[in-house]
């Protein structure tokens, strides 16, 4: 795990006078599923395009498995699978033809193509669609073909730009499962502005705002909770709860709903619930109050984008 799969340092990108990406560094290790979050126009797509060589950065370095992307693009790009926000499909080709072409582009050996194509189709649920023309497929299936194209050469790094846009809820679930499954053996970077999606699949989050990286934490840290919701059948005096040593403060939200604060409360859950049972308070609910990504996101994004993103997240 010592060498990161992808290491991008101090990326800058200017569009005329606009500083679209400003000193963003991204690191990806094997098994990482990195969620790139940000309001519209934050610079997510520009970042991803730079990472896979579609866009040349104005400044900064990108190395892929230790190979410099700018110096030796052809060697480096072999390890990348990229799905742009609009799947790059040739509508007149059949799914099989298209996937074969994608594999050839990635310099896959002729002998391996058909088995790799089968695998990619299986991963993306496209077994039945091989002979169909891409132009005739529904949007969801086209999106799957786009993902199949990105994984056919079994790259170490998969970069997906808004992979679930325009899909129905079932398809979204399937794609998320697929991403989780792929994440076991690959490094994945995924951009989205749908917050629950990040919570569902990613194990690391990086938020980009106005071209800058403003937040970069693992999901694990996000999940660490210092607040607990407790709902009881009886009305009790909040001070009775405070006797527990793990709890530093108690706030009564209403008569029988309390918000407990303390350090690493998840380790003390059984202790607290045992206490409630022993006292015969009638424990109805005990749940960790996770740091909501949405809260962080909204806090970090400026006021004008808040409304928009809440709508998206809803």
């Amino acid at each position: 795990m010592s060498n990161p799969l992808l290491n991008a340092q101090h990326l800058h990108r200017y569009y005329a006078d606009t500083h679209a990406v400003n000193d963003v560094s991204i690191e990806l290790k094997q098994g990482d599923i990195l969620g790139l979050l940000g309001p519209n126009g934050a610079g997510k797509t520009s970042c991803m395009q730079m990472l896979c060589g579609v866009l040349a950065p104005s400044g900064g370095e990108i190395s892929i498995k230790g190979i410099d992307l700018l110096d030796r693009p052809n060697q480096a790009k072999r390890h990348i699978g990229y799905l742009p926000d609009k799947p790059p499909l040739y509508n007149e080709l059949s799914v099989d033809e298209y996937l074969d072409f994608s594999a050839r582009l990635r310099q896959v050996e002729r002998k391996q193509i058909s088995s790799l194509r089968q695998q990619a189709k299986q991963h993306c649920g496209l077994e039945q669609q091989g002979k169909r023309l891409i132009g005739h497929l529904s949007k969801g299936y086209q999106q799957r073909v786009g993902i199949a194209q990105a994984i056919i050469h079994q790259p170490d790094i998969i970069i997906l730009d808004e992979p679930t846009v325009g899909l129905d809820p079932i398809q979204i679930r399937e794609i998320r499962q697929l991403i989780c499954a792929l994440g076991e053996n690959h490094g994945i970077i995924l951009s989205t502005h749908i917050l629950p999606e990040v919570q569902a699949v990613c194990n690391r989050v990086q938020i980009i705002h106005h071209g800058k990286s403003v937040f970069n934490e693992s999901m694990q840290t996000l999940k660490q909770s210092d607040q607990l919701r407790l709902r009881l059948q009886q009305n009790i005096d909040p001070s009775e709860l405070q006797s527990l040593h793990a709890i530093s403060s108690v706030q009564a939200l209403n008569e029988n709903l309390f918000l407990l604060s303390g350090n690493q409360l998840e380790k003390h859950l059984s202790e607290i619930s045992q206490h409630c049972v022993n006292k015969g308070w009638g424990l109805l609910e005990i749940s960790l109050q996770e740091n909501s990504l949405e809260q962080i996101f909204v806090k970090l994004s400026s006021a004008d984008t808040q409304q928009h993103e809440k709508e998206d997240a809803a």
Partner: protein
Amino acid sequence: MIFTLALRELRSLFLSPLAWIILAVIQIILAWKFLGLIELFYSLQPELIKIKSAPGVTDLVVAPLFDFSKIILLIICPLITMKLISEERQNGTLHLLFSSPVTMTQIVLGKYLGALLFFCLIILQISLMPLSLLLGADLDLGKFAAGLLAQFLNFAAFIALGLYMSSLSRQPGSAAVATYGILIMLWIINVAGSANTGESNFFNYLSITHHSIQMLRGIVQTADIAYFLLFSFVFIVLSIRQLDAQRLQH
């Protein structure tokens, strides 16, 4: 890799009705012209016998046919080349190519070769008509080959120009119009140079017609070949540079 790209291009062409319609239309129009030329040759034959070293069937049928086909192909060429890069950009498939381990040179050459292969098919289709004359007449195969070479070089130049225009624009339509404009301009540019002055030589040199007319007569000159090769080379290099520049600028 270049070949993979070229074959994909060719395949996409033949999967759309456009390629088939073009082949059919060319065949119908040129066959009509061909018949007309043979008719003319027949009516002239009694006169021709009287003349010493009279022009043969190659001069009276094949050369005019090739000359005429050049005009038809001038009309068709931008229709094929306009989509080469601009359509990929419109569909977002250019990102697939850019994120794959292929160089810009390979992308451009692949597309160029794909279009060139299609036009080779057209040349083959056209040349079958004169070849059928071999059944009953003597064809000057040297002149015939020179005619074919002229066609090929013309296309090679047209496609390179069309490819470059396609790399400049997002809309296939504007790429086509720009290609038409430049091709027609180069076609007629030597009209300005009918007088024998210094400038007229220069305009003559620029003109496409000036360089292909000799070849159709069977005179193959290095200068003419160099003109077409240079023309193609310049626009291919410009296309590569254009694609590279787009990665840098948006």
